[in-house]
């Protein structure tokens, strides 16, 4: 028979005021398997804990029940005490007779009776507790950062500076992301390149960071601390070791009329190109779709002119396996495509552009060297209309959310324009101005007051061309819906920020969940904003939702800290309260019949297939296997399992069943 020790706490008066603790202890002492049952004023006090420790030794207890407050309050305390007393901490249970009893009922027999029921139930449970050891999972102290925008850069640098290896994967030929396209940044109007470029270089030169540009994730295996990532290094048609980045090839390339992605199509680039002057790495790649050699089979001029003979036309894509312990997802966002705004004539009229295009126009390194010239004829626009919420907050367009950054950058655009074209007038059509943030409201005020931006509260119904002007028709809701018509020279759309193409695909590869807009989903909206529901994979930046630079950077540092926390130990220790699939002697091996209905209920992709093989290696049976590194112990699979092959340690079928019986049978 088991030897259970029961310790009933008075909690000063908190329990004993309404519960007859002596009677509880006395009644419980008569239960089979109870070796010791006593009450004491403050179990959680040092003397109280000492009593438990000594009782464990003296009575050689194999289970302890502390009848006191909520386990959510003191379970760790008493489990620690038991461990110090030489009893496995998972053989200690708490009976909650304070929050669930003494505090919610008056001083009556029924209250004491209830307390007795509660304690008896835990006594019966603890008889069925098994000693458990915390789970140790080895950790590969190397992180992967996917995406080289400002968030990725920040995360990578933070982790690397903490002394851990980082592999950064960037889809494009250069890191930098959208921030490298920006001219100035709100609310300080300091030059984006000037603050970003040094960080980009730091990444490239950091001894702890391996940068793999022009590469994408193929697949992911493994679990927290032990991921195996397959990465496809897209062929650059270039031997990077030999290339010095002299750029001769790019000047000699005959095919120079390719719309430049970096300039958002406002400029051109050759087929062999470096995305932008400050690119990192600053070495060219060949754009196979547009290269004459790849399309027509002749040319090879770059190869001829290359002083180091670095061009490799026959270079294949390369798949590399990388083992990492944690992953930070920073794949950023995109903006809505032209076809989305037929009513604004985007894509139809050259002078209707989006915010990022305006950034390029305003950028000193841009196609117009920072002079605001409209794309159609290079004229300097006299009237510019900025349309906020182009797509955002528009259920009709399927985007119900606020893209958050547009209000600020629109104000910034208006200012930049005014600063560059003093005689010009900027107009802004807006729904609401959302300028929450340090110095943000002040910034918008400046745009309105100092730079005389005309803010018109209302939506634009249509934009059309009439003798060289863009007619913008809208309403001013503050002038009780008066129709407004502006003859603009340039129209700038603050297009909605949306998830990247392929975000869904990537999410599925990494088993992270995503919301209905294809933005990656955090594990908890408030308390786990940088975690995903796949342990070991973290989020930062605009791949989660539209974010501005400070937010992205903050999130990145947050994610970096999570990674460093994970890397702080050689093994990560987890509570062993996880599900396990039962094992039986052959020929049954397990009650599991491998229907894998459990696999789809698991929120953590913790359930894998395990093959039982005979000596010859022939598969006899395929069973569910629960990865202890991934299981979080919710137990949904346990309740679902028809053959009762899965059980949840700490809440086993035997334990919960017994609790029901004990609670109802006195």
């Amino acid at each position, binding site marked *: 028979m088991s030897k259970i020790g029961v310790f009933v706490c008075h909690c000063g008066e908190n329990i004993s005021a309404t519960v007859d603790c002596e009677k509880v202890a006395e009644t419980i002492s008569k239960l089979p398997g109870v070796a010791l049952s006593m009450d004491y004023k403050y179990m959680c006090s040092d003397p109280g804990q000492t009593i438990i420790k000594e009782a464990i030794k003296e009575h050689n207890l194999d289970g302890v029940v502390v009848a006191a407050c909520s386990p959510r309050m003191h379970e760790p305390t008493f489990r620690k005490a038991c461990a110090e007393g030489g009893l496995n901490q998972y053989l200690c249970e708490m009976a909650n007779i304070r929050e669930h009893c003494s505090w919610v009922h008056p001083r009556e027999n029924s209250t004491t009776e209830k307390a007795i029921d509660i304690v008896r139930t835990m006594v019966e449970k603890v008889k069925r507790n098994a000693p458990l050891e915390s789970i140790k999972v080895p950790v590969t102290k190397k992180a992967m950062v996917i995406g080289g925008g400002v968030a990725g850069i920040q995360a990578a640098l933070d982790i690397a500076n903490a002394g851990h290896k980082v592999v950064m994967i960037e889809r494009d030929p250069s890191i930098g992301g959208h921030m490298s396209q920006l001219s100035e940044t709100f609310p300080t109007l300091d030059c984006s390149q000037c603050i970003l470029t040094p960080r980009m270089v730091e990444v490239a030169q950091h001894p702890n960071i391996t940068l793999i540009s022009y590469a994408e994730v193929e697949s992911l295996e493994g679990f927290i601390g032990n991921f195996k990532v397959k990465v496809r290094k897209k062929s650059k048609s270039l031997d990077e070791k030999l290339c010095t980045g002299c750029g001769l090839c790019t000047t000699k390339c005959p095919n120079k009329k390719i719309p430049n992605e970096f300039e958002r199509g406002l400029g051109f680039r050759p087929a062999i190109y470096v995305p932008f002057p400050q690119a990192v790495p600053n070495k060219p790649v060949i754009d196979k779709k547009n290269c004459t050699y790849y399309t027509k089979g002749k040319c090879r001029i770059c190869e001829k002119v290359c002083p180091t003979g670095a061009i490799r036309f026959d270079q294949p894509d390369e798949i590399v396996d990388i083992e990492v312990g944690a992953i930070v997802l920073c794949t950023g966002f995109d903006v809505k495509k032209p076809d989305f705004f037929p009513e604004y004539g985007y894509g139809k009229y050259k002078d209707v552009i989006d915010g990022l295009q305006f950034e390029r126009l305003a950028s000193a390194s841009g196609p117009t060297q920072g002079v605001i010239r409209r794309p159609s004829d290079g004229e300097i626009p006299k009237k510019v209309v900025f349309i906020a919420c182009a797509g955002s907050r528009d259920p009709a367009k399927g985007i119900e959310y606020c893209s958050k950054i547009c209000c600020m950058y629109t104000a910034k655009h208006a200012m930049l324009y005014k600063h560059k074209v003093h005689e010009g007038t900027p107009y802004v059509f807006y729904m609401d101005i959302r300028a929450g943030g340090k110095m943000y409201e002040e910034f918008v005020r400046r745009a309105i007051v100092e730079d005389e931006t005309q803010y018109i509260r209302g939506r634009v119904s249509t934009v059309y061309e009439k003798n060289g002007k863009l007619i913008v028709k809208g309403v001013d809701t503050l002038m009780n819906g008066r129709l407004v018509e502006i003859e603009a020279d340039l129209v700038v759309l603050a297009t909605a920020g949306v998830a990247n193409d392929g975000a869904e695909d990537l999410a599925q590869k990494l088993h992270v969940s995503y919301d209905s807009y294809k933005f990656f989903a955090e594990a908890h909206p408030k308390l786990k904003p940088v975690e995903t529901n796949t342990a070991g994979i973290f989020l930062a930046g605009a791949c989660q939702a539209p974010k501005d630079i400070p937010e992205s950077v903050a999130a990145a540092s947050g994610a970096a800290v999570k990674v460093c926390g994970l890397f702080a130990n050689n093994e990560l220790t987890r509570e062993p309260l996880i599900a396990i699939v039962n094992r039986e002697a052959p020929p*049954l091996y397990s*009650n599991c*019949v*491998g*229907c*894998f*209905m*459990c*696999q*789809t*209920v698991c929120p953590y992709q913790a359930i894998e297939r395990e093959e039982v093989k005979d000596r010859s290696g022939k598969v006899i049976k*395929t069973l569910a296997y629960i990865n202890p590194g991934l299981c979080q112990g919710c137990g949904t699979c346990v309740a*679902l399992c*028809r*053959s*009762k092959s899965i059980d949840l340690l700490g809440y086993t*079928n*035997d334990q919960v*069943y*017994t609790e029901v019986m004990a609670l109802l049978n006195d």
Partner: protein
Amino acid sequence: MNELIAKAKYLLSSKTVDVVIGYGKGSGKYARAEFIRKLDDADKMIYNETCIQNLATYVQKHEVKHLGKIAIVANNYTLRSLLVLASEFQFTEGQVLALYITPENKIVEMPDFKSIEDHLATVDTGLKPDEKEIVDRIEKMTVAERWDFWQKEFAKCFKCFACRSSCPLCYCTKCMTESNQPQWIPVAASDLGNMEWHIMRAMHLAGRCVNCGDCARACPMDIPLNLLTYNLIEGIEKDFGAKAGMKATDISTLSTFKPDDKENFIK
């Protein structure tokens, strides 16, 4: 049915399959399962209104599995059972060749899941009017009446588990009722043991049962067990728009969810 016999002989002689599971004349009301492995045995095969046992049950049987590749005479229930089994990874495509027999007694070979799925998409797999009628009748009773109705029925049960054994989807090697730590369900065929057993079984078939009715036919005490699953099938189709055994890749109703599942009882 000569066409069927010829088909069986061909499949065996051409080594397409090692055994054809079909029907032969029975000694009672229903035809019995025959396992044709020799050409001459094929002459035993019949197909008529007495052939209603859901032969998919045998696909899971140890000895039958080991006979080799299987061809199985199938009706729509059999086909759906096969797809459920497939969706639960109990056999792989190509292991079982279904010989579906049309109402016009034409034999259609269904070697892969797609052919079965395409066929099922064209047939009416809903509850039959008479089935609906019984469910409605019981639903119209008061709770007390329903309780008495079922207690009388369950009292007949002596736990021979013919319902379980005859069900193609009850294939656990160790049934929950045999798991004894804890002993979830009393082993005794007592009123409680019987009620808990039948409710548990029905619940384990929720979203999986294809409504073949073999459990009720198998019961020597004539307990109308299929009513329990009829009722589930109705509700599951209404609440979740789900129907078991229509696709080999289906995810079972209870193994998934929709954030907007509608109920009216959780306060």
